């Protein structure tokens, strides 16, 4: 059913259609509207057979989900930013225990400095946690990915994060096609756990594992995610068959067939990038886009196939691994490794802490990559004057204070 609806609300409706049995809620912007939404659906009886639990922290939220999932219930929670970090220990634990929890991340920057706006820092902080991470480009995809995520998680016995850009998706009111309950029921069978806490067949879950078996446990987890690389496209196909809409999958290409430069990005920014591409193509710039949906598992082969023919790759990502650069760029580099003639990789970090990524800036960036390629990581729209001044000052004063604060102070005095 088509609705003009806020992204969060749409996702809430989609999640409810998946019939979760346990929902743990804890407020943090910009995820809050999602759990509020499902909470309302539980209260008004739309979603039956579901415990909506107001927990005291994100750590508890995921912990409650862990308990519920291990006890055989379909469990869901959502968070963002600080919340994800607060539950970090449980994030690793859920995957280590092989529990198919689905969690929405309303992607948001991590403090300090505290910042409620969108970027992908928090998702990246948990990229090694053993969860599968799917990034939605649009609110329609956000809705669809949730439905696929439950199926993926449960088939793999592995938790899934659905990453949706905070505000840009969560708070945007747009037209979204909300699936029918019957179709979702057809697509997503009831949860059949591979292991469950049951007095009729007791087991001990969560053993202490020493050096003699730990590597194997981790290998098997890694192997499972590799397996998921085959399953994710299948689930997208099945979804398309049933719902008549292409959503999800490992990645999506846009005008890459003849592209000499291919941009790689994740999430909502891909819309802007596509518009930029369209405009640049009018100028004759052979440019295309790979939208990466599945960040974990990371589709190395599929990316290589998609990127092989290009001469340049520009990775645009909303996260920085401080001291290293763009983590996604680094991962893409891995995909290109060992190619006979790998494309040249250009890494750009953009949109941190909610800074708008404009078509103009992107177009400049793409052009520049051809004419004036840079080394290392490029920070899109960096205020270089401020940065330079700060660096200069810190050279003089040994104790210069937190860079972030100084930057802000400087910007404030300049304006």
């Amino acid at each position, binding site marked *: 059913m088509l609705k003009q609806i806020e992204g969060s609300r749409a996702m809430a409706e989609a999640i409810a259609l998946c019939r979760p049995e346990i929902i743990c809620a804890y407020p943090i912007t910009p995820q809050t509207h999602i759990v509020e939404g499902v909470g309302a659906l539980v209260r008004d009886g739309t979603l039956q057979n579901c415990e909506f639990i107001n927990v005291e922290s994100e750590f508890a939220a995921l912990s409650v989900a862990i308990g519920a999932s291990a006890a055989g219930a379909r469990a869901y929670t959502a968070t963002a930013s600080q919340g994800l970090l607060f539950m970090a220990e449980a994030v690793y634990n859920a995957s*280590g*225990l*092989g529990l198919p929890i689905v969690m929405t991340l309303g992607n948001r920057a991590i403090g300090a400095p505290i910042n409620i706006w969108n970027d992908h820092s928090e998702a990246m902080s948990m990229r090694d946690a053993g969860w599968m991470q799917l990034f939605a480009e649009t609110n329609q995809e956000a809705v669809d990915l949730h439905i696929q995520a439950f199926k993926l998680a449960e088939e793999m*016995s592995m938790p899934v994060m659905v990453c949706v850009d905070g505000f840009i998706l969560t708070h945007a009111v747009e037209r979204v096609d909300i699936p029918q309950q019957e179709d979702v029921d057809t697509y997503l069978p009831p949860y059949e756990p*591979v*292991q469950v806490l049951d007095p009729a*067949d*007791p*087991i*001990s*879950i*969560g*053993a202490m*594992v020493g050096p003699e*078996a*730990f590597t*194997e*446990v981790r290998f*098997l987890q890694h192997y499972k995610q590799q397996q998921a690389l085959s399953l994710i496209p299948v689930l997208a196909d099945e979804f398309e068959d049933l719902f008549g809409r292409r959503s999800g999958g490992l990645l999506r290409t846009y005008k890459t067939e003849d592209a000499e430069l291919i941009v790689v990005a994740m999430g909502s920014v891909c819309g802007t990038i596509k518009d930029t591409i369209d405009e640049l193509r009018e100028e004759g710039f052979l440019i295309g886009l790979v939208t990466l949906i599945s960040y974990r598992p990371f589709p190395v082969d599929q990316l290589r196939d998609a990127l092989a023919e290009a001469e340049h790759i520009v990775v645009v990502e909303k996260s920085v691994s401080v001291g290293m650069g763009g983590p996604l760029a680094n991962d893409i580099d891995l995909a290109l490794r060992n190619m006979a003639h790998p494309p040249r990789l250009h890494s750009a970090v953009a949109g941190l802490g909610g800074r708008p990524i404009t078509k103009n800036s992107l177009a400049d960036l793409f052009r520049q990559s051809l004419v004036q390629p840079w080394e290392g990581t490029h920070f899109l729209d960096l205020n270089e004057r401020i940065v330079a001044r700060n660096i200069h000052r810190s050279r003089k004063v040994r104790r210069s204070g937190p860079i972030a604060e100084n930057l802000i102070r400087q910007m404030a005095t300049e304006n």
Partner: protein
Amino acid sequence: MEHPYAITLDVGTSLANHTGSWRTKRPVYVDRLPPCNAACPAGENIQAWLFRAESGDYEAAWRKLTENNPLPAIMGRVCYHPCQGACNRGEVDEAVGINSVERFLGDEALKQGWGFDKPETESGKRVLIVGAGPSGLSAAYHLRRLGHQVTIKEAGPLPGGMMRFGIPKYRLPREIIDGEVKRITDMGVAIEYGVKVDDIAETMREGRFDAAFLAVGAHIAKRAYIPAGAAARVLDAVSVLHSMEDGEKPMLGRRVVVYGGGNTALDVARTAKRLGAEEAVIVYRRTRDKMPAHDFELEEALQEGVLVKWLSTIRNVEEGEITVERMELDASGFPQPTGEIETLATDSVVLALGQDVDLSLLDNVPGLEIDKGVVKVGPNMMTGAPGIFAGGDMVPSERTVTVAVGHGKKAARHIDAWLRGETYEPAEKHELASFDKLNTWYYDDAPRTIQPVLADVRRTSTFEEVVGGLDETNALYEARRCLSCGNCFECDNCYGVCPDNSVIKLGPGNRFKFNYDYCKGCGVCAAECPCGAIQMVPEAI
């Protein structure tokens, strides 16, 4: 279900890990010797019969008891219960009223008509017993159980010895004696009454006896030299008490003086009261704490109105009065005369100064040794004459029914072995379950049930039994006060407190065993065993 590798485990798989290898000490179940048992002259296994009584299985308890002592109803009345003096419970609150439970069991047996089994096989050996006092009866019972033909020759008209002709019936009703003796004769023990053995060798030869046990007691009253006028009425305690049984009640008068400080003196004084004496005064040389009589008996006597003149000796007896001299204890506790004289009006004086043994029947026995008026016996109760054993009051020892019964049992075992040309080796005694071996935390505090005491008025005027028995509830309660020193009472503590779940419970009556595959040797079971029935012993490495 195929579990995820390593993070998920099957339940109970730790059984593969035999933690018993960690152990440096191992617990073992032991039976330690309860102090009551150790103190019992009759060698009763008190803890064991109390254990059975605790579950209300009185017959089993009685049978356990009578393995050692065939006279519990008697013993439950007259035994001076050294067991209770030794009882560990005394250090917690008050000693277990072992004696009263014994009496309850004895009475219950008489009430229910429980009897002894006849021996399964006959040995064909003939044993003569002289004297149907407690020692003779006990020996007869044990010998009969062992399959021997037993004949008791008794000078008197009735069985019981001093129990009948000494101990007053308000303490020991005669039907109790009759009942318990009958059980013994029912086993096939023959008692010939009115037969005084005066030549033991001759009697044995005549009756073709293979062995003999002598238990003639000590019946000749000791006399002290006291100047007495011709008309003075001076009697001895043994005859006074004896005549109580013979029909002819002794004439003691309104005022009676009893001379002596033993239990016999008290019995006579109390008997005198019952015979109508207005005044019964015991004259005793020393002080109360030096008195050989048991305090509880003195207490009962005092309650009945018996008076005691402490630190006094009788100097002279005349008709109607005596002269007494006040004594003083010297530094070593001996009474010394002070020269202070006083007179007391009295109708009769009864001397209770102890008894000697009539040894005339032993005159012609070679090898037999007499020392200080009693017959010497070896550790096997045999006299110097082969095949002739002796026990009870006639051998050197404490003179009590209990000792006499113990001698009878002991002698029987040795006679039995001797008849087979063997020697009897008693089983080695377990280590004593002393108080420090117990963990008394686990016992609730509980004072001893006081046996109902006959209303004072009634008891001074009648010969009705003074001390009543316990009813079943009380007896059960009392039995359950037993701490079961040194012997497992299946409290399940070890089974419960083992952090390694390494004690196997074998079910009612079968106690427990350790699972050494897993026992780490922490010693908690031994520390928490209430009754000290677990010992930690070093592992041999």
